């Protein structure tokens, strides 16, 4: 069966919109995107969309949020609220995987390998801040392909 996860991206969107300019201004690298390099995340139309979503939520929880501390307490609070939303969605996606409804095909494996390579191509703080600044790319893709 399909993997159906109820989640409200509105809350995540609102949190991100509040810190978007601040976070993106900390990322001076225009020529590289973690999620969209070399091919746009939007080009990924595969049937294993659930797998990519799960991999990306795991990526943000395990590799991004923890490296995104700033000197601004307002920004930090928004980041941790977004992180908590990601944690709860990932838990739901995990249940799908356990029920075998979240198959990982070649396309998602290849795409996620590219994302990790983009991430590891930068130092941790820059990579994490850039990834956080690309949250709207992830949300746009998720909502478009809902």
């Amino acid at each position, binding site marked *: 069966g399909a993997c159906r996860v109820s989640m409200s*991206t*509105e809350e995540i*969107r*609102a949190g991100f*919109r509040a810190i*978007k*300019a601040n976070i*993106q*201004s900390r990322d001076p*690298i*225009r*020529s*590289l*995107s973690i999620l*969209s*390099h070399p091919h*746009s995340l*939007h080009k990924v139309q595969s049937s294993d969309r659930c797998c990519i979503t799960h991999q990306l939520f795991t990526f943000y929880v395990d590799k991004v949020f923890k490296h995104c501390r700033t000197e601004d307490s307002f920004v930090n609070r928004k980041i941790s609220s977004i992180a908590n939303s990601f944690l709860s969605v990932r838990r739901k996606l995990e249940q799908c995987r356990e029920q075998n409804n979240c198959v990982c095909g070649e396309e998602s494996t290849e795409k996620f390998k590219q994302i990790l390579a983009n991430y590891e191509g930068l130092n941790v703080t820059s990579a994490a801040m850039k990834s956080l*600044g690309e949250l*709207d*790319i992830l*949300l*746009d893709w998720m*909502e*478009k392909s*809902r």
Partner: protein
Amino acid sequence: SGELYCSLPNPRNVHFESTNMKNVLHWSAPEGTGDGVLYKVKYAVYGVGKWIRKAECRNINRTWCDLSSETSDYEEQYYASVKAFLNGTCSDWMETTRFNPLTDTKIDPPMVSISSTDRSISITLTAPEKWKRSPEEESISLLQVYPGLQYNVSVLNKKTKKRWFFSISNNTLVVPWLEPGTAYCVSARIRVTTPLLDSGFSK
């Protein structure tokens, strides 16, 4: 030719103004400069990063530049930058923040057409179209861009000042049980919940 020594004050408030994904770059003239300032504009796709000069906005004296064509792929994000020139000197390049056409555009109100019987009103709503290069180009409704697009409709009884609100996803609404011979005012707006985008109400 080598780059000039740039001592001119910078253009200010360089930003995109976008409606229905017609994306126009705007800025303010450098402080303290009168007439005669000319500008150059360039833009870049985020993740590609190669700056591309906008030929039609080279050595212009206006303080806007239409980049709709260059930023029409709303699955990408963009930067744009402006440089000022005056009397042989220049400013630094001044950049926008990262521009996401999908979340950073404004949406016009829907078109509202109405037919009525003596006791009901039938309302048909049409979402605006995405900006397009020419009339011949295929039209894309913003309904296709934002699958979660909804309409908020308000119906006001002008005599009793009683008002009803409706929130609908499809584009037609029939309001029954109205009072014959009474004037009603219908107004509608578009609501996209995520990303959060609200149009104004139609006249």
